[in-house]
């Protein structure tokens, strides 16, 4: 399964999820869905925006676990 390590990256960058949501251009509700792992898919554009704002690679956010 794919796990989203967004909390970890937010901690590293000392950024709140609300701040990231506003910078990426998604709602707080959608950010919460993403953080809690309820999301079924993520658009490339959203992933690109998150990586841009957090100065990281997609692999830093997404992780595959057995």
């Amino acid at each position, binding site marked *: 399964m794919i796990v989203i390590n967004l909390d970890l990256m937010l901690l590293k960058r000392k950024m709140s999820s609300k701040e990231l949501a506003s910078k990426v251009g*998604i709602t707080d509700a*959608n*950010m919460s*869905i*993403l953080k809690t792992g*309820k*999301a*079924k*898919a*993520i*658009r490339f554009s*959203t992933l690109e925006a998150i990586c841009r704002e957090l100065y990281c690679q997609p692999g830093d956010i997404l992780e595959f676990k057995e």
Partner: protein
Amino acid sequence: MYSYKKSTILSMVATALFMVVVICLLCFGHILFKMYYIDFRGFSSEAYLKELASTLSACVYPGCVLGIVTLTLLFKMLLNIYKQKVFIKENIIYLRVISWCCIIVAILTGYCAISYIPLTVVAASAAFMGIIVRVVKNVMQTAIALREENDLTI
């Protein structure tokens, strides 16, 4: 939007009217059977007519109850559609129950068709309707899954 709402209201009115007819049949069905009995008195034997009346009673009254359940659920579903709540799980449950009601009516009328052959048409129609509703339910279920996936795509 106007025609959409108008069409839904029309469907709701039609459903309500149909429900009134079914309730009337449930309340005054015995009068209809008596009329039927008197009209046919000269053509068939007393025993046959009594058997026919009991067969129809055993089939029509439970059928009416199932019909009322079906129409109530249909009305509720139309109410949801009117409120723009089309692809919700509640509607799936309604469609599933409606489908089963149709199938039960088909079995009931199919059994009664042994004594009264014309009921075969009703049984076939009910079974066909049950299958159609079931297919619609399956389509709706898929649509809900697609919508959920779309909603959870960030």
